């Protein structure tokens, strides 16, 4: 089955379970006013409250299959990904396309979000991976996600995927450029064990849900 069809059929199966999301409590504009994200400024949450509050879904899980990569021209009014063949645009529009990759995320634990099921689909602005170094299915990760119009999920930045390595959560700054291999910790997570981080995430979710 072609990748696009595989993604579409998975999406139909999964979107019904992606309804009933908890909404994020800190929106993009608020993050901009706080100086934690900008027009061209990487997402740099200053606290766990920002990271948690800017997410609609938080899960612990692993990357599953790489599903597809398309030329992406935005979403249509029904939320579907607009993707076209190069020949439809000629030289002009093809230049403006983004590359969008889709990955399966296998959920082990849900911190925030309802009725997610066992799998969701992550969409990322990225070229097709030449290998799975940065999406290694054996590594457990915390995903801080926002819903996309097409029923998949995305992140505000690389810090929103925290990888469990040697007992601590870190993030890769090199998702797209494998030559700049840097593994970094968010200052407010540095030195904390995975168990402590997960408990703090649980606490933040609980706190943000209070009146």
């Amino acid at each position, binding site marked *: 089955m072609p990748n696009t069809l595989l993604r579409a059929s998975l999406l139909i199966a999964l979107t019904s379970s992606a309804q009933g999301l908890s909404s994020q409590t800190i929106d993009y504009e608020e993050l901009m006013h706080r*100086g934690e994200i900008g027009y*061209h400024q990487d*997402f740099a949450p200053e606290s766990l409250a920002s990271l948690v509050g800017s997410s609609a879904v938080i899960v612990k899980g692993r990357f599953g299959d790489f599903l597809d990569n398309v030329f992406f021209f*935005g979403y249509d009014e029904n939320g579907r990904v607009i993707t076209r063949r190069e020949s439809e645009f000629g030289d002009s529009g093809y*230049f*403006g396309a983004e590359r969008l990759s889709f990955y399966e995320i296998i959920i082990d634990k849900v911190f925030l979000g309802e009725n997610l099921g066992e799998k969701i689909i992550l969409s990322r602005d990225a070229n097709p991976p030449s290998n799975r170094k940065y999406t290694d299915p054996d590594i457990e990760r915390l995903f801080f996600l*926002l819903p*996309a*119009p097409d029923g998949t999920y995305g992140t505000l930045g690389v810090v929103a995927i925290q990888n469990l390595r040697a007992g601590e959560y870190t993030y890769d700054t090199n998702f*797209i450029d494998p030559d700049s291999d840097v593994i970094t910790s968010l200052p407010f997570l540095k030195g904390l064990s995975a168990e402590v981080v997960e408990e703090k995430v649980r606490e933040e979710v609980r706190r943000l849900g209070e009146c």
Partner: protein
Amino acid sequence: MSWLWWSNKAYAVDETTGPRIIPNTYSFALSRAVEVFKNTNLKPGQGPNGEGKVEFVSGSFGLFRKPAWTRVWSGPIECTIRNSQGHYLDSGICDKNFRRADRAIVTFNTTHLRHKNTVILKLSALHEIGHVFGLGHPAQNCPSFMTPLVTAFNPQSLSPQEHQYINSSY
């Protein structure tokens, strides 16, 4: 300055957020923004190979993408590069002498900008056009529309330094 406009199929017509005294559309905001650059030495589209083509695109790109971004090319070679967070940065491979940028596409993400007023749309357009012509980001407290965070408080005209930069570069 001439400029081109196209919109993806999500918004086949120029985006309008409702009846107002002045039209609150991307194209109106762009026409206002382009005015700001008119008294400089810029002559887009007048190079021997049509250099200076600037295209503006609007579309719905979702909550977790930026409100706007700019990509620049020199012929088939892209002068901008996407970083790990999905931002387009100057890759450093183009310059004004040997590999001169001759084409840019500015994308507006309607998901974020749909409900913004004309001032913000104009400032966003100014900011991105500034990138097209090589302006970077000054500190947030500088009196410029090129600060990293675009707000309604940003000035809507070029600073003397920015004016001088453009005049000396083109």
